[in-house]
Protein backbone atom coordinates (compact mmCIF):
# COMPACT_ATOMS: atom_id res chain seq x y z
CA UNK A 1 0.00 0.00 0.00
CA UNK A 2 1.31 3.40 -0.95
CA UNK A 3 0.03 5.26 2.08
CA UNK A 4 0.27 2.78 4.93
CA UNK A 5 3.25 4.69 6.26
CA UNK A 6 1.03 7.52 7.39
CA UNK A 7 -0.71 5.59 10.18
CA UNK A 8 1.33 2.42 10.07
CA UNK A 9 -1.64 0.35 11.22
CA UNK A 10 -2.51 -2.82 9.35
CA UNK A 11 -3.99 -6.21 10.08
CA UNK A 12 -6.35 -8.96 8.99
CA UNK A 13 -9.51 -7.52 10.47
CA UNK A 14 -10.68 -4.00 11.27
CA UNK A 15 -13.71 -3.97 13.59
CA UNK A 16 -15.47 -0.61 13.65
CA UNK A 17 -17.63 -0.04 16.74
CA UNK A 18 -20.17 2.74 16.32
CA UNK A 19 -22.62 2.07 19.15
CA UNK A 20 -22.45 2.80 22.86
CA UNK A 21 -22.28 0.09 25.51
CA UNK A 22 -25.94 0.32 26.55
CA UNK A 23 -29.25 0.34 24.73
CA UNK A 24 -28.45 -2.20 22.01
CA UNK A 25 -26.34 -5.32 21.62
CA UNK A 26 -24.29 -3.92 18.72
CA UNK A 27 -21.17 -3.19 20.79
CA UNK A 28 -21.25 -6.56 22.58
CA UNK A 29 -21.72 -8.49 19.35
CA UNK A 30 -19.03 -6.47 17.59
CA UNK A 31 -16.56 -7.19 20.39
CA UNK A 32 -17.49 -10.89 20.25
CA UNK A 33 -16.55 -10.96 16.56
CA UNK A 34 -13.21 -9.28 17.35
CA UNK A 35 -12.42 -11.73 20.18
CA UNK A 36 -13.24 -14.78 18.07
CA UNK A 37 -11.09 -13.54 15.19
CA UNK A 38 -8.20 -12.93 17.60
CA UNK A 39 -8.68 -16.36 19.18
CA UNK A 40 -8.25 -17.83 15.69
CA UNK A 41 -4.93 -16.02 15.38
CA UNK A 42 -6.05 -13.09 13.22
CA UNK A 43 -4.54 -9.67 13.75
CA UNK A 44 -7.39 -7.43 14.86
CA UNK A 45 -7.64 -3.65 15.03
CA UNK A 46 -10.51 -2.02 16.91
CA UNK A 47 -11.78 1.41 15.94
CA UNK A 48 -14.18 3.19 18.29
CA UNK A 49 -16.13 5.65 16.22
CA UNK A 50 -19.01 8.01 16.88
CA UNK A 51 -21.03 6.94 19.91
CA UNK A 52 -18.76 3.89 20.15
CA UNK A 53 -16.13 5.99 21.96
CA UNK A 54 -18.38 6.00 25.04
CA UNK A 55 -17.54 2.31 25.46
CA UNK A 56 -14.17 3.46 26.77
CA UNK A 57 -15.50 5.75 29.51
CA UNK A 58 -14.07 4.40 32.79
CA UNK A 59 -16.11 3.22 35.77
CA UNK A 60 -18.98 1.57 33.91
CA UNK A 61 -21.12 -1.04 35.59
CA UNK A 62 -23.66 -3.47 34.27
CA UNK A 63 -26.73 -1.49 35.32
CA UNK A 64 -30.25 -2.50 36.31
CA UNK A 65 -31.12 -4.49 33.19
CA UNK A 66 -29.02 -7.44 34.29
CA UNK A 67 -26.90 -7.38 31.15
CA UNK A 68 -23.23 -8.07 31.56
CA UNK A 69 -21.93 -4.73 30.31
CA UNK A 70 -18.96 -4.47 28.01
CA UNK A 71 -16.15 -3.20 30.20
CA UNK A 72 -15.14 -6.70 31.45
CA UNK A 73 -14.85 -7.72 27.78
CA UNK A 74 -12.76 -4.65 26.99
CA UNK A 75 -10.44 -5.49 29.88
CA UNK A 76 -9.84 -8.91 28.28
CA UNK A 77 -8.68 -7.52 24.93
CA UNK A 78 -5.04 -7.54 25.89
CA UNK A 79 -5.26 -11.22 26.80
CA UNK A 80 -6.45 -11.89 23.25
CA UNK A 81 -3.51 -9.87 21.85
CA UNK A 82 -5.81 -7.13 20.61
CA UNK A 83 -3.60 -4.19 21.36
CA UNK A 84 -4.30 -1.84 18.47
CA UNK A 85 -7.13 0.34 19.73
CA UNK A 86 -8.07 3.46 17.83
CA UNK A 87 -10.52 6.24 18.71
CA UNK A 88 -11.98 8.81 16.41
CA UNK A 89 -10.74 12.28 17.40
CA UNK A 90 -13.92 14.04 16.29
CA UNK A 91 -16.08 11.70 18.38
CA UNK A 92 -14.00 12.31 21.51
CA UNK A 93 -14.55 16.04 21.06
CA UNK A 94 -18.26 15.53 20.46
CA UNK A 95 -18.70 13.64 23.73
CA UNK A 96 -16.33 15.86 25.71
CA UNK A 97 -13.81 13.04 26.28
CA UNK A 98 -10.02 12.95 26.17
CA UNK A 99 -7.92 10.06 24.95
CA UNK A 100 -5.84 10.09 28.15
CA UNK A 101 -8.97 9.74 30.32
CA UNK A 102 -10.23 6.48 28.77
CA UNK A 103 -10.25 3.08 30.49
CA UNK A 104 -7.77 1.69 27.94
CA UNK A 105 -4.97 3.33 26.08
CA UNK A 106 -6.09 4.13 22.55
CA UNK A 107 -4.59 6.08 19.72
CA UNK A 108 -6.49 8.92 18.09
CA UNK A 109 -7.29 8.86 14.39
CA UNK A 110 -9.11 11.44 12.36
CA UNK A 111 -12.11 10.77 10.18
CA UNK A 112 -9.98 11.62 7.13
CA UNK A 113 -7.71 8.65 7.91
CA UNK A 114 -10.48 6.05 7.80
CA UNK A 115 -10.12 5.28 4.10
CA UNK A 116 -6.49 4.41 4.69
CA UNK A 117 -7.42 2.11 7.59
CA UNK A 118 -9.95 0.28 5.45
CA UNK A 119 -7.33 -0.23 2.76
CA UNK A 120 -4.70 -1.68 5.12
CA UNK A 121 -6.98 -4.42 6.51
CA UNK A 122 -8.17 -7.46 4.55
CA UNK A 123 -11.62 -7.42 6.11
CA UNK A 124 -13.71 -4.66 7.71
CA UNK A 125 -16.73 -5.40 9.92
CA UNK A 126 -18.89 -2.52 11.15
CA UNK A 127 -21.13 -2.74 14.20
Amino acid sequence: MANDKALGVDGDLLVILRHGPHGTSWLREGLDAALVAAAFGRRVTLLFMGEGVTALVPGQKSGPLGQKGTSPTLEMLEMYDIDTLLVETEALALFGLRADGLMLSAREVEAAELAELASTHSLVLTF
Partner: protein
Amino acid sequence: MMRYAILLMGAPYSSQAAHSALRFARAVAERGHRLEGVFFYHDGVHNAARLAAPPQDEPHLVDGWTALAADHGVPLQICIAAALRRGLLDEREAARHGKQGYSVAPPFELTGLGQLVDLGLRCDRLVTFGP
Protein backbone atom coordinates in the same frame (compact mmCIF):
# COMPACT_ATOMS: atom_id res chain seq x y z
CA MET B 1 -16.03 -14.32 -11.64
CA MET B 2 -15.68 -13.02 -8.12
CA ARG B 3 -16.19 -14.75 -4.80
CA TYR B 4 -18.77 -13.01 -2.66
CA ALA B 5 -20.11 -13.48 0.85
CA ILE B 6 -23.00 -11.76 2.58
CA LEU B 7 -23.32 -10.70 6.20
CA LEU B 8 -26.93 -10.04 7.17
CA MET B 9 -27.63 -8.29 10.49
CA GLY B 10 -31.19 -7.05 9.97
CA ALA B 11 -34.32 -8.87 11.17
CA PRO B 12 -36.81 -9.97 8.50
CA TYR B 13 -39.69 -7.55 7.77
CA SER B 14 -38.41 -4.94 10.28
CA SER B 15 -36.14 -3.23 7.79
CA GLN B 16 -35.13 -3.44 4.15
CA ALA B 17 -31.90 -5.26 4.98
CA ALA B 18 -33.10 -8.86 4.59
CA HIS B 19 -35.06 -8.17 1.38
CA SER B 20 -32.08 -6.40 -0.18
CA ALA B 21 -29.65 -9.10 0.93
CA LEU B 22 -31.76 -11.83 -0.65
CA ARG B 23 -32.12 -9.91 -3.92
CA PHE B 24 -28.39 -9.20 -3.97
CA ALA B 25 -27.63 -12.87 -3.27
CA ARG B 26 -29.76 -13.97 -6.24
CA ALA B 27 -28.17 -11.34 -8.50
CA VAL B 28 -24.65 -12.45 -7.56
CA ALA B 29 -25.40 -16.10 -8.26
CA GLU B 30 -27.34 -15.41 -11.47
CA ARG B 31 -24.58 -13.21 -12.91
CA GLY B 32 -22.18 -16.14 -12.68
CA HIS B 33 -20.29 -15.08 -9.57
CA ARG B 34 -19.72 -17.44 -6.71
CA LEU B 35 -21.62 -16.77 -3.49
CA GLU B 36 -19.58 -18.64 -0.89
CA GLY B 37 -22.02 -18.17 1.94
CA VAL B 38 -24.51 -16.02 3.79
CA PHE B 39 -23.78 -15.39 7.47
CA PHE B 40 -26.60 -14.30 9.78
CA TYR B 41 -25.62 -12.29 12.85
CA HIS B 42 -27.19 -9.86 15.33
CA ASP B 43 -30.96 -9.59 14.59
CA GLY B 44 -30.30 -11.21 11.20
CA VAL B 45 -30.53 -14.61 12.89
CA HIS B 46 -34.34 -14.21 12.91
CA ASN B 47 -34.26 -14.85 9.16
CA ALA B 48 -33.77 -18.52 10.00
CA ALA B 49 -37.03 -18.84 11.97
CA ARG B 50 -38.68 -21.82 10.34
CA LEU B 51 -42.04 -20.96 11.93
CA ALA B 52 -42.27 -17.61 10.14
CA ALA B 53 -45.71 -17.27 8.56
CA PRO B 54 -45.93 -13.95 6.70
CA PRO B 55 -49.17 -13.00 4.88
CA GLN B 56 -49.43 -14.76 1.53
CA ASP B 57 -49.21 -11.56 -0.49
CA GLU B 58 -45.78 -10.69 0.97
CA PRO B 59 -42.41 -12.16 0.03
CA HIS B 60 -41.64 -15.21 2.18
CA LEU B 61 -38.07 -14.59 3.24
CA VAL B 62 -37.38 -17.96 4.91
CA ASP B 63 -38.60 -19.74 1.76
CA GLY B 64 -36.51 -17.29 -0.29
CA TRP B 65 -33.31 -18.20 1.55
CA THR B 66 -34.14 -21.90 1.36
CA ALA B 67 -34.68 -21.64 -2.41
CA LEU B 68 -31.38 -19.79 -2.79
CA ALA B 69 -29.57 -22.61 -1.01
CA ALA B 70 -31.33 -25.23 -3.15
CA ASP B 71 -30.75 -23.44 -6.46
CA HIS B 72 -27.15 -22.36 -5.96
CA GLY B 73 -25.77 -24.51 -3.13
CA VAL B 74 -25.12 -21.48 -0.91
CA PRO B 75 -24.36 -22.31 2.75
CA LEU B 76 -26.64 -20.41 5.18
CA GLN B 77 -24.73 -20.00 8.44
CA ILE B 78 -26.23 -18.66 11.66
CA CYS B 79 -24.16 -17.41 14.59
CA ILE B 80 -25.04 -19.88 17.33
CA ALA B 81 -24.49 -17.49 20.25
CA ALA B 82 -26.67 -14.77 18.69
CA ALA B 83 -29.30 -17.38 17.77
CA LEU B 84 -29.63 -19.22 21.09
CA ARG B 85 -30.23 -16.11 23.14
CA ARG B 86 -32.95 -15.06 20.66
CA GLY B 87 -34.77 -18.39 20.81
CA LEU B 88 -33.50 -19.83 17.52
CA LEU B 89 -32.51 -23.45 18.13
CA ASP B 90 -32.14 -26.38 15.80
CA GLU B 91 -33.29 -29.85 16.78
CA ARG B 92 -30.02 -30.74 18.47
CA GLU B 93 -29.73 -27.53 20.50
CA ALA B 94 -33.40 -27.76 21.50
CA ALA B 95 -32.79 -31.24 22.90
CA ARG B 96 -29.61 -30.10 24.61
CA HIS B 97 -31.43 -27.23 26.35
CA GLY B 98 -34.52 -29.32 27.15
CA LYS B 99 -36.84 -27.29 24.89
CA GLN B 100 -39.94 -28.59 23.18
CA GLY B 101 -39.91 -27.97 19.44
CA TYR B 102 -37.19 -26.29 17.43
CA SER B 103 -37.08 -23.15 15.34
CA VAL B 104 -34.16 -23.65 12.95
CA ALA B 105 -33.91 -26.37 10.31
CA PRO B 106 -31.63 -27.11 7.32
CA PRO B 107 -30.47 -25.62 5.04
CA PHE B 108 -29.78 -23.13 7.84
CA GLU B 109 -26.97 -24.29 10.08
CA LEU B 110 -25.88 -23.02 13.48
CA THR B 111 -22.19 -22.26 13.52
CA GLY B 112 -19.61 -20.05 15.19
CA LEU B 113 -18.33 -16.55 14.51
CA GLY B 114 -15.06 -18.05 13.32
CA GLN B 115 -16.93 -19.00 10.16
CA LEU B 116 -17.77 -15.33 9.54
CA VAL B 117 -14.15 -14.28 9.81
CA ASP B 118 -13.05 -17.18 7.61
CA LEU B 119 -15.72 -16.38 5.03
CA GLY B 120 -14.81 -12.70 4.95
CA LEU B 121 -11.09 -13.33 4.55
CA ARG B 122 -11.57 -16.07 1.93
CA CYS B 123 -13.83 -14.06 -0.41
CA ASP B 124 -13.07 -11.12 -2.68
CA ARG B 125 -15.99 -9.17 -1.19
CA LEU B 126 -18.02 -9.43 2.00
CA VAL B 127 -21.14 -7.30 1.65
CA THR B 128 -22.96 -6.33 4.86
CA PHE B 129 -26.68 -5.65 5.08
CA GLY B 130 -28.00 -4.16 8.31
CA PRO B 131 -30.74 -1.88 9.59
